[in-house]
């Protein structure tokens, strides 16, 4: 070659191929040797430089960090915004901008989506605290009046507020109106924008959810709640009367529940009973009476809502709420991205999903941040097919209560909590721990076999589990895991391995199935999908946690159980109006489901074949951790979704030192 070889030779002299190769081989084999030989056994395990786990063997199950669990109470610490502090768009992230199933506020089962609805639509009553189950009037003007016997009420009069108007895009300035999907409402639904809400709308919304002749009746999954309201009559334009078939104590809950929105009739196509059909533009139909107006939802990206200047303001219209110009929820679910955005003040609040360690780190770094922790009311559970729903035939192997009890004892709840949520979790009984009003106290729960974690207790439970499993004939077990959220298939191999070890069981390789498949399988005969493992929604009232699941013929009774003793208790709790008595019945129900004697004194020795015990195994629920900037005033956390109407109280403190650097 014409090129000078000087530099080539220079390098060649130093680094010959042999030397290069030799170095690589030495290094590689050194690594390989080290890995194979290991370094002997024993030795303690050191933790990373971060917080070491609080001893959990006998202690707390609220995770590594002591609980400063926030209980939702939207009345607490409410600071009205000073003059000049209004305005600004709140920004946060979440799953709100995902149309998982449908835009229909009465039909959607996806929490983050009906959170968006809750900013736009109103209900008769709104929850102020889920845990304490306190609700306040929203569209109603005062709590319901009981007519007749106050101990066994069946008739209620509800007055509505006057002057509540449906959203009118003409009431906002033109530049905001352009961003609303509902901007052509006056052309599409003439007469609707700005019209007053009356009893007709309320009655329509209620009747819709229990209309058996509707072609979509099967999809109204709360219909069992509305079926208890035998008659809903209009007394005058602002008064309605509800007649129930027998005393129904959760009635107030039904009126404030997550899907109890009042929607205008004009937006629904009566023939199909839906607001979604080809070319229907469902977003243009999101016209409600709430503090915010529906802006635009860009699927998988963001949802924007904007301030409703004509909002009725609950009991204090003079405050001029909502203070914000609106909020935006971005669909960003990656932890790293969320952290970066939070640091840059591009979002005002952020939480850790699945692994909140970054939240604790950032809180240590910046102590001025506000820390939010809350127990979520959604939880993970397993469901077994005990009897075939259609024929009533028993389904082997899960029809044997001993087997179900064995799995209940052997299931490693601590492993689930540590694996999925890094210990940031709480044990869940038949009623979730977030609902402190009705749930079995954690003290009692932790003494029940299956929920006991000390070494000695655990050994006892596992010995019993093995014994029961053998008595039940050591059958082959198979579980079907949901494929979402992603931590469930993630955890599946570990769970299976745990069962294998604890029971010496023959557990077939697990199947992962998407939710529709699980639902279908559970409905069909005994040979389809007999044991599932998945995530379940969060409920508020005691009734929702147990009645639809365990009552004979209940809408969620996929187990096919029919337990006359449990049925009697379930009916009793529905009729009991004294809170303490109802709670006591609730405890008895929970104990029965956990195979304990109704007074809690100990486990039932032999369970009847019709027993509904352990048909649903409840494992754990997560405890969220989040941080928010101090300029974000009046923020709340609730254990479940659907509370975005409370953003009406939020304002951004421009005088707060942390506000600098925040754009927009």
């Amino acid at each position, binding site marked *: 070659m014409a090129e000078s070889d000087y530099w080539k030779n220079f390098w060649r002299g130093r680094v010959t*191929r*042999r030397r*290069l*190769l030799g170095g*690589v*081989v030495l290094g*590689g084999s050194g690594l*390989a040797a*080290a*890995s*194979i030989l*290991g*370094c*002997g*056994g*024993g*030795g*303690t*395990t*050191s*933790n*990373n*430089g*971060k917080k070491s*786990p609080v*001893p*959990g*063997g006998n202690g707390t199950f609220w995770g590594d960090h002591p609980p400063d669990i926030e209980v939702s109470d939207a009345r607490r610490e409410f600071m009205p915004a000073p003059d000049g502090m209004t305005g600004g768009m709140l920004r946060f992230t979440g799953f709100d901008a995902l149309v998982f199933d449908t835009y229909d506020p009465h039909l959607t089962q996806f929490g983050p989506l009906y959170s968006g609805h809750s900013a736009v639509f109103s209900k008769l009553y709104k929850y102020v605290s889920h845990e304490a189950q306190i609700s306040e009037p929203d569209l109603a003007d005062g709590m319901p009046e009981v007519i007749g016997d106050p101990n066994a009420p069946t008739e209620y009069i509800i007055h509505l507020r006057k002057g509540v108007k449906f959203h009118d895009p003409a009431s906002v300035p033109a530049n905001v109106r352009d961003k609303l999907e509902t901007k052509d409402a006056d052309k599409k639904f003439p007469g609707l924008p700005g019209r007053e809400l009356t009893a007709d709308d309320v009655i329509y919304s209620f009747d819709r959810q229990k209309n058996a002749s509707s072609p979509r009746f099967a999809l109204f999954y709360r219909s069992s709640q509305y079926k208890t309201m035998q008659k809903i009559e209009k007394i005058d334009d602002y008064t309605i009367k509800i007649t129930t078939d027998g005393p129904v104590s959760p009635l107030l809950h039904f009126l404030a529940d997550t899907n109890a929105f009042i929607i205008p009739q004009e937006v629904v196509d009566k023939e199909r009973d839906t607001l979604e059909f080809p070319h229907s533009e469902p977003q243009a139909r999101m016209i409600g009476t709430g503090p915010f107006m529906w802006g635009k939802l860009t699927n998988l990206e963001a949802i924007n809502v904007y301030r409703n200047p004509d909002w009725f303001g609950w009991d204090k219209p003079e405050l001029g709420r909502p203070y914000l110009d609106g909020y935006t929820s971005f669909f960003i679910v*990656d*932890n*790293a991205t969320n952290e970066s955005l939070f640091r840059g003040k591009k979002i005002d609040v952020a939480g850790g999903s699945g*692994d909140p360690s*970054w939240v604790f780190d950032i809180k240590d770094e910046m102590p001025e941040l506000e820390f939010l922790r809350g127990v979520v009311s959604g939880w993970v559970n397993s469901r077994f097919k005990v009897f075939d729903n259609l024929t009533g035939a028993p389904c082997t192997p899960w029809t044997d209560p001993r087997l179900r009890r064995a799995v209940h004892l052997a299931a490693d709840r*601590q*492993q689930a909590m*540590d*694996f999925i949520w*890094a*210990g940031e979790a709480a044990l869940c009984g038949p009623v979730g721990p977030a609902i402190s009003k009705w749930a079995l106290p954690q003290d009692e729960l932790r003494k029940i076999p299956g929920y006991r*974690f000390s*070494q000695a207790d*655990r050994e006892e439970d596992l010995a019993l589990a093995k014994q029961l499993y053998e008595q039940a004939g050591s059958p082959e077990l198979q579980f079907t895991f949901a*494929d*979402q959220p*992603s931590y*469930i*298939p*993630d*955890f*599946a*191999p*570990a769970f299976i*391995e*745990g069962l294998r070890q604890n029971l010496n069981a023959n557990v077939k390789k*697990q*199947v*992962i*199935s*998407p939710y529709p*498949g699980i639902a279908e399988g559970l409905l069909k005969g005994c040979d389809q999908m007999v044991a599932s493992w998945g995530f379940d929604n969060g409920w508020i009232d005691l009734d929702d946690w147990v009645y639809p699941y365990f009552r004979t013929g209940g809408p969620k009774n996929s187990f096919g159980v029919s337990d006359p003793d449990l049925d009697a208790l379930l009916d009793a709790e529905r009729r009991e109006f004294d809170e303490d008595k109802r709670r006591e019945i609730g405890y008895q129900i929970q104990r029965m489901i956990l195979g304990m004697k109704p007074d809690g004194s100990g486990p039932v020795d032999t369970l009847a074949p019709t027993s509904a015990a352990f048909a649903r195994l409840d494992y754990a629920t997560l405890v969220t951790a989040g941080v928010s900037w101090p300029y974000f005033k009046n923020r709340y956390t609730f254990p479940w979704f659907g509370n975005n109407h409370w953003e009406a109280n939020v304002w951004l403190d421009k005088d707060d030192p942390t506000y600098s650097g925040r754009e927009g």
Partner: protein
Amino acid sequence: MQAEDQPAQPSVIAAPREWTLPKRPSVAANIWKFTRRKPLGALGMLIVITMLAMTLGTPKASFGTPDLPSRPLGFELGKPWLARYDAEKTFRDESTGRIRRYNMPSADHILGTDKGGRDTYSRMVFAARRSLFIGLWALLFATVIGTAVGVVSAYFRGWFDTIVQRIMDSFQAFPALLILILLVSLRPPSLTVLAFGLGFVGVTSVQRIVRGVVLSTREQPFVEAARVIGATDLRTMVFHILPNIMAPIIVVFSIGLGAVILAEAALSFLVPGKVPQDPSWGIMLQQTRDHLPPDAEGYHTLAAGGAIAMSVLGFNLAGDALRDVLDPRLRVG
């Protein structure tokens, strides 16, 4: 006849040597020759061999805890030689009873533990099996079909070739990752679907390369000679053309393995619920992707990401070197 008269003289011509065939170089010598000429390729081969050691095992291979069952992949493979513990063994702290979640590397766990208290190093080794298994099946599928299509298409040329190539183009036009996600979404997660899907999207690349080579090979005299002595088309393709294109096929195979491993990792990242949950580098990576050393989770990322990078590196280097060695045109002068 003159032997007794002449005094014995040293012959001018040296006594004829025993002519033997030149000794074939031993295997070791061949390897050394390869290593000297292509050190990067040797490194690649070393990595490949390590991966194989991670995959294979015997039922009796026992490091750590021999009492636990091995993790067969549909057929008994035993515990991999290089694995220390079982992939699903959950380790607990003696004193607290809590699982050893994301522990730093220590004597017991050289790369630390993962979110379930399982030994990261052992899971990494077990996961090699899955990557190799999927890679091999997928590539086998892609190579067999791709070669068949490429050879046939290039051999016959003409309108047949054109139509086939258009069909292949239409397959190529599909965005591969999206089609993969679609295929795994249609069925519950299974290794077969994964392998099939990955193979399916590889067919077009393989056939394109094979076709190119066959187009030039078929012009060679020996092909013509085969036709002349009456070999049928099939015979010509299988016995004459095919053996001569093995070199590029081997190269494609080795480099393709790297691509398949990366694709599997990407799939696990995007749709973690739709791939089988046996330990796999892609799934491991997806679990701790936010962290790097010196976080404890970072060692988990390092293990998985490093394993992927190393195996892709190894296969590519080996493939490169093989191509350089086997392709006469590129021999250094």
